[in-house]
């Protein structure tokens, strides 16, 4: 029998039982809608994290003390090499790929001034830090090389700190107290927002690392060294170069472990992305269960419909339908219903995602891939759950089917 005829017969049958069709489709509609919304939330979270990672700075390389952990699992005993100012200077001096290097010293401290006091993180960095993080200033300027050398008591405020101590005011030129030391504010940074893990990147102040190490904290250890390359293409080469420079700087023998870790932004991102990917999968899995339930709903209705329509099947067979025709009719019916349900579900999923992101402020992303997969999945549901009832209908004996009341 021709495909068009089959579709005609099946769609006649679907249209003639609008209520039954709608109830059958409902399960698929909800299932597909749920999958679209859930995946939209997951992908939204992923893209948000990607944005935040990009906001960390471009082409950034991070050197931290201690050997790397792979997949969060430590590989036996850790070798630990402290980072030194000398390391940072050596990288800056010798590396061909790296254009900016900054050590990071940090300490939690109280900043007093303006509206009162604010507990925040004080970061001691070099002048390159601003370049590495690609961070613009809202007011004033970043400190310069001479201020660094002279360990001047100058400070650049993160946006959150400035907002809290000096709301709606340009504090450049004013003085704050840090550990009873007066420090001049020379700039305020533009806001960068939260990190993926929810930390406020703007709740921070920056000062020359020399100043921090000597005057503003008793803590002089270098927490990390940041570096960046002009182009992202150079990042892997720069990483390897930094590793070799570091090994040389620490006089590490040929077979010994590094005792420090050099990572780039993508390495950092992978952990976070991995987590949200798992989350997306989980959400999709939960939503797929409702799709599965929808599929079972279709099978239920189709099975009931085989019984209910036994007489119809008998009539069709009596006038010359082959078992195969009946089976294809039922299959096409169930596929058309689940595809139609899938389409409506996609619409509802899109609407739901945008409503949800408006209500909660969550980032949601709906992609054509999700739609294709959802539709393919619902067609699959139609075939899978339609097959058994269809085969059952095809196996009926025409006389018995005709006698059925």
């Amino acid at each position, binding site marked *: 029998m021709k495909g068009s005829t089959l579709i005609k*017969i099946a769609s006649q049958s679907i249209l003639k039982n609008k209520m039954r069709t709608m109830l059958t489709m409902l399960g698929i509609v909800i299932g597909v809608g749920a999958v679209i919304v859930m995946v939209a939330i997951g992908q939204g979270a992923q893209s948000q994290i990607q944005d935040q990672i990009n906001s960390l700075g471009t082409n950034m390389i991070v050197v931290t003390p201690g050997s790397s952990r792979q997949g969060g699992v430590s590989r036996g005993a850790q070798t630990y090499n402290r980072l030194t100012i000398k390391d940072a200077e050596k990288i800056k001096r010798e590396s061909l790929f790296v254009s900016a290097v900054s050590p990071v010293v940090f300490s939690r401290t109280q900043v007093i001034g303006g509206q009162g006091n604010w507990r925040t993180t004080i970061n001691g960095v070099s002048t390159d830090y601003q370049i590495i993080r690609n961070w613009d200033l809202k007011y004033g300027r970043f400190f310069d090389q001479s201020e660094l050398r002279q360990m001047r008591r100058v400070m650049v405020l993160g946006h959150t700190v400035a907002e809290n101590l000096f709301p709606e005011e340009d504090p450049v030129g004013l003085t704050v107290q840090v550990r009873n030391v007066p420090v001049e504010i020379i700039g305020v940074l533009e806001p960068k927002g939260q990190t993926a893990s929810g930390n406020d990147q703007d709740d921070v102040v920056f000062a020359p690392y020399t100043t921090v190490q000597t005057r503003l904290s008793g803590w002089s250890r270098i927490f990390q060294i940041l570096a960046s390359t002009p182009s992202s293409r150079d990042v892997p080469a720069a990483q390897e170069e930094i590793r070799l420079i570091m090994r040389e700087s620490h006089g590490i023998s040929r077979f010994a472990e590094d005792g420090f870790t050099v990572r780039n932004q993508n390495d950092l991102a992978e952990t976070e992305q991995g987590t949200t990917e798992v989350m997306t999968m989980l959400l999709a899995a939960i939503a797929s269960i409702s799709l599965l339930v929808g599929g079972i709903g279709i099978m239920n209705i189709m099975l009931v419909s085989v019984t209910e329509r036994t007489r119809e099947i008998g009539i069709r067979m*009596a006038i010359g339908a*082959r078992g195969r025709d009946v089976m294809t009719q039922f299959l096409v019916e169930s596929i058309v219903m689940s595809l139609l349900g899938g389409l409506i579900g996609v619409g509802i999923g899109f609407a739901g995602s945008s409503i949800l992101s408006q209500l909660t402020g969550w980032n949601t992303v709906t992609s054509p891939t999700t739609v294709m997969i959802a539709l393919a999945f619902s067609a699959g549901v139609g075939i899978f759950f339609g097959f058994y009832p269809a085969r059952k209908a095809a196996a009926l004996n025409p006389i018995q089917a005709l006698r059925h009341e």
Partner: protein
Amino acid sequence: MHHETVMRTEGLTKVYTMGKTEVHALQGINLSVDRGEMIAIVGASGSGKSTLMNIIGCLDYPTSGTYHLDGVQLQNLSRNQLADIRNSKIGFVFQGFNLLARTSALENVELPLLYDRSRQKIAIRKTAEEALERVGLGDRMDHEPNELSGGQQQRVAIARALVTNPSILLADEPTGNLDTKTSVEVLTLFQELHDQGMTVLLITHESDVANCTQRIIELRDGKIVVDKRIEPVKAHMTTVTDESEETTPAFT
């Protein structure tokens, strides 16, 4: 008209097994039908009329015996082959009409053509419309079964049986669910089709219906006990005279 055999059975038997009991519904039916004949099959309820009709109509298999239709022996045929024969060579009219609900008369009549795989491209709609016009329902094509009277429904069913231009038209108590007046109309229609050359086999309980035909075959306990040719009477005349002994419609 020369005698050309449309169908012929030899030693046809049908045994139904229900648990331990066996029902011998047909016990050796030898029947030969010429093209253009109109035959009534009569007999008491349970005598095997429907069983015979179902086998002739390729809805069921005989237990033993041979059956030729249009010169082809129908033995060891697959379900699909039987379906194709039902579609192209047989028109079946049932007591209970058996139309698809919520489906217009035209769509019902189109149905056998949709399942027809022997013919290539034919004008399905036009052929179906012609069939409906032939049974006098040219003005009811878009009506659904529940918008039609019993007689009209049966005529739609007859149009559906005719639409493929079958070799033989089978009707199992086609007037069983109809009142006397409508029965006459339906029988007249069968006679008209017969006059146009159609081979008609109809099962009936009512003797006046049987008298409209040329040949009466009576079954008893699965055997043919009477096979006689008669001079047919026009349907409307008999019913007018036999009004007094109106038989109640039998439901089998």
